[in-house]
């Protein structure tokens, strides 16, 4: 659904989303990278009712973009720029913690 602007010439950044390799661009936020990579929808499921959601405000306000980044859950994907080797997993409900 989302397409990159054709003049977006930033260098490539390699990340993985749910174990699959994704090529993002420097300066992308995690949410922008997921949305433009055409990953399986929905973006996430909510913690209490399990309803499907996607990033809404893309500016840090609504918390509808929560993802797990490098093992840490409930991070706001719309505020965090991608970096090489970043491991992103989408949240299917509540945040997991390791015992």
């Amino acid at each position, binding site marked *: 659904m989302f397409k990159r602007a054709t003049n977006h010439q930033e260098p490539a950044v390699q990340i993985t989303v749910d174990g699959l390799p994704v090529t993002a661009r420097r300066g992308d936020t995690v949410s922008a990278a997921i949305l433009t990579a055409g990953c399986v929808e929905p973006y996430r499921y909510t913690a209490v009712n399990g309803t499907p959601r996607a990033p809404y405000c893309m500016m840090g306000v609504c918390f509808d973009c929560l993802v797990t980044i490098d093992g*840490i859950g*409930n991070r706001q994907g719309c505020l965090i720029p991608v970096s090489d080797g970043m491991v992103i997993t989408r949240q299917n409900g509540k*945040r997991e*913690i390791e015992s």
Partner: protein
Amino acid sequence: MNHTQSTNEYDVAVIGGGLLGSSIAWGLGRLGQRTCVLDEGDVTKRASRANFALVWVQSKGLGLPEYTGWTVRASETWSKLSDEIKAQTGIDVCHQRPGGFHLALSEKELEDRRLSLRRLHNQPGATDYKIEILDHDEVKKQLPHIGPDVVGGTYCPLDGHVNSLRYLRAIHSALKTSGVDYRPEHRVSTIEHRNGEFKISTEQGEIRAGKVVLAAGNANMTLAHMVGLKAPMSPTRGQILVTERTVPFLGFPLTTIRQTDEGTVMIGDSREEFIDDTVQNLPINAVMADRARRMFPLLNQLNIVRTWSGIRVMPKDGFPIYDQSETCPGAFVTCCHSGVTLAPNHAFDIAPMIAKGNLDLERVGAFSARRFDQIQVQSSGYY
């Protein structure tokens, strides 16, 4: 004007719409009493919106054994209350009674706990609530995520918890469908007893009722003397921390930590004499968070997303006050810490007594405020 008693607007006016007032008013409505609830409004300090939501038995009643029995009764009737409320409103308040733990982080803490439980148990007339004292390994069988600093703990099968904010919302919708008249923004300034009825003044006019129940939390202190009662209070402040939601990992509530039905972890609850609920004592939050993560090291991974402080409704000795006026028959006062725990007793026991016009002294006489006329009993209304 010449009013007779039969022209009362209400059989009962309940002053205060927190956990106590709402539960009692609902119980009265259930018995067909024409009831109204007069509540001051959102400016008030209200424990019912700030609590930790335990339905808690273990360690209650040192100094007043009747309080143990009263609490055990509440633990046993909570599911009836939640079932009735669900049938009436469709709202599930998530009452659970898996039993509850109290954990110790040093041998001394465990020994202190053991001693106070023994004193409680040895009181004449004490109700047995089947508490077990466990070492680290025994605790770990039930709470696999405890850290190495936990030396042991106590377990009581009667303990539980509930979503108390949802209960408050549910009981308010139940009041509505039961025909109880809830009137917010009705701060009561005076109560007069005249010609066998009560004339209650609020900024929005006078309300007349055959009986009056004071359930205004700490404000009972100032209202009680208007109808020949007393309610000596010494409020305290408690602070609570809340984490982000996480997958269920804690199958039991603890005195100071519980995971809610929606996945947040609540960490409580401190006690200070200071009663400004608009600020927080941050060093206390730090101690609470630190103890919590020593108990469950995996909490280190979670962010705290909310904290607040709340003012406890606290009778001077920590035990409930239920009393009726001798000089103004039909006037009652009710207040307690642990209004979540005791909600079913207020709905199913206290309300019928009020409907009849008399407290059953055999059952609740021990909670009369007359005890404050005698030598001070030692306080242990806490956990």
